[in-house]
Structures are given as C-alpha cells and as structure tokens.
C-alpha cells in the first residue's frame, strides 16, 4: 500500500499537458512584455514571423500600439481577421521575405518575434539555422530578437529570460 501511495505521489508530480501549455503561454507573454520594454527607445517596426492563431500578434498590438507590425507567413491564413491585411501581411518564404522587408535602414525592426518551432526536432534545427543566418543581423541597433528556437552562433548577443521564465523555453537576443 505504501509503495502504491508513493507511486501516486510520484505520478502527481508530473506536469499535465494542460499545465505545460499554460506555462508555455505565460512564458511567451512574459517574454513579449519584457521585449516590448527593452525596445522602448529603439525606433523601428515589429516583425512577427509566423501568424499561427494570431494571439501573439494581438498581444504585440496591445503592447505596442504605436508600432507598425509586419507579419510574415508562408501562405494566406485560412481565417481572415486573425492578423493584419494589406502590406502588413507578407507572404512567401521567410528566408527571402524577411531580409527583403528589412533592407532599408529605416525599415530595420526593433523587435522580431519568431514562434515557428514544432514537434519535429530535425525540422526545428534546420529552421533555427536558417533564422540564425539572417535574423540577428537585420535588427536595428539595440533591437531584440525573441525566438522559441535557440539561434546557433548568436550566443554573444543572448540575454537572460525575464524572471519566472525557465531557461531554454524562449531565447532573447539583443543587437549591440
């Protein structure tokens, strides 16, 4: 009986998928708030890479009402209204669309938020390598990159996550 109780206690220590989703979204929100504060004095638009269900786009809009926000997606979302329209929705391969959008000095983003990782670790590694190749370099000076995938080679620019966010959950980089 004792071992069964011990086993039950042990099992209860596991975090459910509901718990872990709540933690992930809370961490995401804390990082967005932190990043928005860090770019307070940095001019430039915000780039949102991956629209998904539009929740973080909506949160960025609430946090930074005076900033232009550009969303980069592979193809038009099924449900219109989740994100911006017109020239603020940029469709195509992010390896081309994102650098092109930041080519003029005034267009360099103060914040790039990228939430495009999936459960496929090999695919994530390829995505992270691709992002690391162009993303840190196109930021405005003092600009922030916030990514759910670590960007290999950008470690010199890494910042610790805000209080309450476990290391390794989100990755913050600041261009000097």
């Amino acid at each position: 009986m004792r071992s069964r109780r011990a086993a039950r206690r042990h099992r209860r220590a596991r975090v459910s998928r509901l718990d872990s989703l709540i933690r992930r979204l809370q961490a995401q929100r804390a990082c967005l708030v932190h990043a928005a504060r860090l770019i307070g004095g940095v001019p430039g638009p915000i780039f949102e890479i991956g629209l998904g269900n539009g929740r973080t786009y909506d949160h960025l809009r609430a946090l930074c009402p005076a900033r232009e926000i550009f969303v980069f997606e592979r193809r038009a979302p099924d449900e219109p209204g989740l994100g911006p329209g017109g020239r603020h929705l940029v469709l195509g391969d992010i390896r081309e669309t994102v650098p092109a959008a930041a080519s003029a000095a005034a267009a360099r983003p103060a914040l790039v938020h990228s939430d495009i990782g999936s459960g496929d670790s090999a695919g994530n590694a390829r995505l992270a390598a691709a992002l690391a190749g162009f993303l840190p370099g196109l930021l405005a000076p003092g600009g922030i990159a916030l990514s759910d995938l670590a960007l290999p080679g950008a470690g010199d620019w890494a910042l610790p996550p805000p209080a309450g966010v476990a290391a390794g959950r989100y990755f913050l980089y600041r261009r000097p």
Partner: protein
Amino acid sequence: MSRLDINIRRLQAQRACLNLAAEYIGDLPGPVFELGLGNGRTYDHLREILPDREIFVFDREVAAHPDCIPDPAHLFLGDFQETLRRACARFAGTVALIHADVGSANAARDARLAAVIAGFLPALLRPCGVALSDRDVAFAGAEPVPAPASVAPQVYFLYRREAACEAAAPRAGTAGRG
C-alpha cells in the same frame, strides 16, 4: 485584454475547475467520463489529478496527441447521443464526474450538444456526482455548486446530482466523503 491574455485566462479557469471538481468528488466511488477528447489536454490533466480513477472518453473521432489517447476499452467513438445511450446501459447511476468540453464558435450547435448531454446526466451520475462543462448542462435534480473564486461567472458550469446526497453530508462541499 489581448487574445493571448484571454486564452491564458480560459486555460487557467479550465484547470482550476477540473481541480475543484476532483476535490468535490473526493472519495465518491465511480468512473470519470470525459466528453470531447479534442487534443487530449484535459484528459491528460484528469488522469494526473485522479490517478486511481477509470476514465472513459467519448468523442466523434480521435485527433489527440498520441500520448493522450485512451486504450480502446476506455474509448467510446461516435455520436454522443448513441455512445452515451450505450454507456447508460453499463454505467447508469455510477459515474462520479462528467466533464464536457463542448464549446466552439457555433453557439447554436453548442446549445444543442449541451442539451443532449444534460439529458443523460441524471441517468449516468451517481448521487452527489459532479458535472462540469463550459456550456450550461443544467439537468433535472441538479444542484449548482460554486466554481472557483478566480473564475468569472458563466465561463464554467458545475452541478452536483442531488438525491441521497442531502442526508449524507448536507451542503458542506465534502459530500460523499463519509
């Protein structure tokens, strides 16, 4: 409130209600029914907070994370009307907790589904058994029980089947624990 804020609040409310419902049923015997598996998150949470309970899952089809799919003996696949009718034959008056996550963007569809589910609750729940849903599933013989203080009204609905309950532990919130 951004849509990210709203989503976090909704998930926290869902978790708080599941945890409270598990407290409400205490040591009341009987299985748990999960109506609507979806991606399996609340099923996963229920099996964590109620590790010694049998959990039976009902859904039209399985679209959950592979780790959150019950074995075939605990899965009722098909239309709720049909699967709940079958379950009644086997579980009438024995179920301790029924969680129904039916909410969608289609209010008319949700209301129809909630009515179907509410129709089965008096037959399935044991006296003092608890029903939790994100849509109102008030049923004959249902006593509303308070949601967690942190949860806004009309977001989640908690009911307890009355009957023998009153004599055992009148309105103490510890009904069924003896």
